[in-house]
């Protein structure tokens, strides 16, 4: 049986890389006595799968890990035992049994919601205008760079929601994520503000991942909505 954990990663722990987060959970499960299943063979490892790596330095409220159990454990007991031996900067908020034949956390991610929080001196009403302008366009072609390649892509169809709050301090966006058509929130911001951003103190902008979504009946739903509490 497989369960899905939702967790947040905040504070100083934004400097812990993805592999170390995985190691953290392996040790956490052993400390908390979660009955995790191990693979076969000479070097057995915990059967564990995570959502795509969070960039180093970014906070998140919506990370997920799927883990295979050898026996059930009540959700509230598991959450309690995990909280007792976890650092506050990684907080597990749900522990749910997944339905059989459910796609794993990594593969199921199709979209992610981010919040971009601007410092006071950078905020203002033109945030809303910039968001509206972006949404009005039919296509926004940008250059996407990876370690090896550079290619032009149209990100407009990959942005599902984009809006600023009343004060113009926070931009919220729901954008494509996962193994297909993955885009970063910075790509959208850059398309919205372009060169103007270089004048900003970019280091003072905070981007936070809020949640990750999968497709169910053509609708985006939170990964947290799949599965049920074990009671």
């Amino acid at each position, binding site marked *: 049986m497989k369960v899905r954990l939702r967790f947040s990663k905040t504070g100083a722990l934004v400097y812990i890389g993805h592999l170390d987060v995985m190691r*953290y959970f392996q040790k956490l499960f052993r400390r908390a006595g979660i009955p995790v299943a191990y693979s076969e063979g000479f070097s057995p490892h915990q059967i564990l799968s995570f959502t795509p790596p969070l960039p*180093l330095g970014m*906070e998140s409220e919506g990370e997920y890990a799927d883990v295979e159990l050898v026996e059930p454990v009540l959700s509230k007991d598991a959450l309690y035992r995990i909280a007792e031996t976890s650092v506050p900067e990684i907080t597990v908020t749900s522990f749910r049994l997944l339905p059989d034949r459910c796609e794993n956390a990594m593969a199921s991610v199709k979209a992610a919601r981010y919040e971009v929080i601007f410092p006071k001196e950078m905020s203002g009403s033109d945030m809303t205008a910039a968001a509206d302008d972006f949404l009005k366009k039919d296509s*926004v072609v*940008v250059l996407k760079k990876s370690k090896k390649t550079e290619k032009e892509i149209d990100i407009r169809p990959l942005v599902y929601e984009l809006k600023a709050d009343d004060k113009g301090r926070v931009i919220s966006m729901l954008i494509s994520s996962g193994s297909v058509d993955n885009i*970063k929130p910075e790509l959208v911001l850059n398309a919205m503000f*372009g060169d103007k951003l270089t004048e900003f103190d970019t280091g003072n902008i905070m981007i936070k991942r809020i949640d990750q979504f999968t497709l169910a009946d053509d609708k985006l739903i939170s990964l947290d909505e799949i599965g049920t509490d074990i009671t």
Partner: protein
Amino acid sequence: MINREKTYVNTSFLMLLSIGMGKLALSKEILMSIDKPARYIGHEVNAVIKNPEGLIRFAMCFPDVYEIGMSHLGIQILYDMFNSYEDVWCERVYSPWNDLYPLMKKDHIPLFALESQDPVSDFDFLGITLQYEMCYTNILQVLDLSGIAFYAKDRCENDPIVIAGGPCTYNPEPVAEFFDLVYIGEGETSYRKLIDLYKEHKKVGYDRQKFIREAGKIPGIYAPSCYDVSYNEDGTIREFFPLYDDMPAVIEKEIVTELSDTYYPVKPVVPYIKATQDRVVLEIQRGCIRGCRFCQAGSVYRPIRERDVEKLESFARQMIASTGHEEISLSSLSSSDYPDLDRLCNFLIDEFSDKHINISLPSLRVDAFSLDVMSKVQDVKKSVITFAPEAGSQRMRNVINKGLTDEDILNGCKQAFLGGWTRVKLYFMLGLPYETVEDMEGIAKLSNEIAKLYYDTIPKEKRVGKVNIVSSTSFFVPKPFTPFQWAKMATMDEFRMKAKVVNDAMKRQLNYKSIRYNWHAADVSVLEGVFARGDRKLSKVLVRAYEKGCMFDAWTESFRFEPWVEAFEEEGIDPAFYYNRERPLDEVLPWDFIDIGVTRKFLEREYENAKQQKVTPNCRMKCSGCGAARFHGGVCYESKA
């Protein structure tokens, strides 16, 4: 406004960071620009956080990078001990790596402790452990970044008291002037007294030098500034003497008599990044019965003392539960000499092997028992059988009192080959006193014999490829408080020649294709040799080397020899005086003021026995009267059948 039809990604923008974390000493710009920022953020599971108000603050520093420092059991023991004191908060400090160091220098960012992220200069004490000589320049890096003067005499009233500990304090003299205090011996016994004295002094008009002088009267604590040294014309020491009548002329090392009744870190800090020792470590005993004549640890930690096996079993359970580590390991100088090893190994196997916890058993003598245990806990095909014959010939092994015979090694190998093992690692030393060409060639011959034994033992149809033998030699560095403390160490050219003799001999062996031979760098060994037996005159060489950028000298990738050569030249000091010189028995040695229990008389006797190739029995076979019995503990007081 901007052209929104076609916008290109501003790559620096991808460096966007979140903010709003807990207090960190380093800015996000810095943390995002360096390798492994997790080295500097603290916040680990089991890290101890206290409200600092009214507490004595102790910064415990391992002067090397985080992953190395976090792997050290001694620091974990002391961290646990200090934090068990209600009036003390002990935090950890490690050396910033090469990438962070220049950034801290440039922006004047003070070195900080991991838990509170507060500057080290705010602490009451800065404890620095001296684990190996090649970390001495890192001490200066730590002081420099902390804004604390290198030399104790130049420090301000309110600077932390800088105190050294660890194995290199058995000759603290090359670094003595950098320390206000040096703790000689095991940390569990005298620190409480030191803290109490400090609190007393703080209550009534604290005077730094007065405190240091009083602290120097606590057992095991040496206050270098209260002593002076005079020299003969040839540079040797004429006299080492206290400056005040009330200071002890001799400092006795501190030891824990009952190892079972002392601190043990059952909730060690769990690093996020992979530390070198990413496992639970059980220290089963301290000290060694063997008396190998090259080994400093075997001498300074005498007498051997064991931990109670029941306590160890309870520690193992608690530590696995508190850390979630997936591996457990034993620590000691020679695990096979632990009387309850059989019971402990069976316990570990019964308790943990079905819980996906690996068991690693280092420093076990290879015999039927250990092979049986190892086959239960390891994948035989992947694991390696390790021997440390230390020397290539029986003659030479008698010189160094290494009680391991060719027969032991070959028997062990034969059983291992029959058990399915195909990989053997052998450790040797080159440049030992009285070494001959035959002794060196013996290394190649023994390696070859083991390979031959494999082919003789395992029939062709049962072999899985070749046997794999890796022989490594390190260069012998004479250490204080060993019978070889008077011996001349070989020069770099001699070392290279010796390695060539071995290498050439390897190529002449029938089975040379099954053997790989490695040797260590000679230049680092020579420096180690200088500082191991150095005196106070060397501190200025260290300062100069640091100013020339020497740091992390224990790391091959950052070690540079030339600046060291310059530093010695500029200070007018000949390194050969320290390493490449036989000392007469009546010479005053820089560490003579330390009493480790083992007497100088015994060491002299052993030096003579080495010359005569005479073997001295181990402590359990027969007491050789080394002097350690005066600690009233351990093997010296076991009933001798």
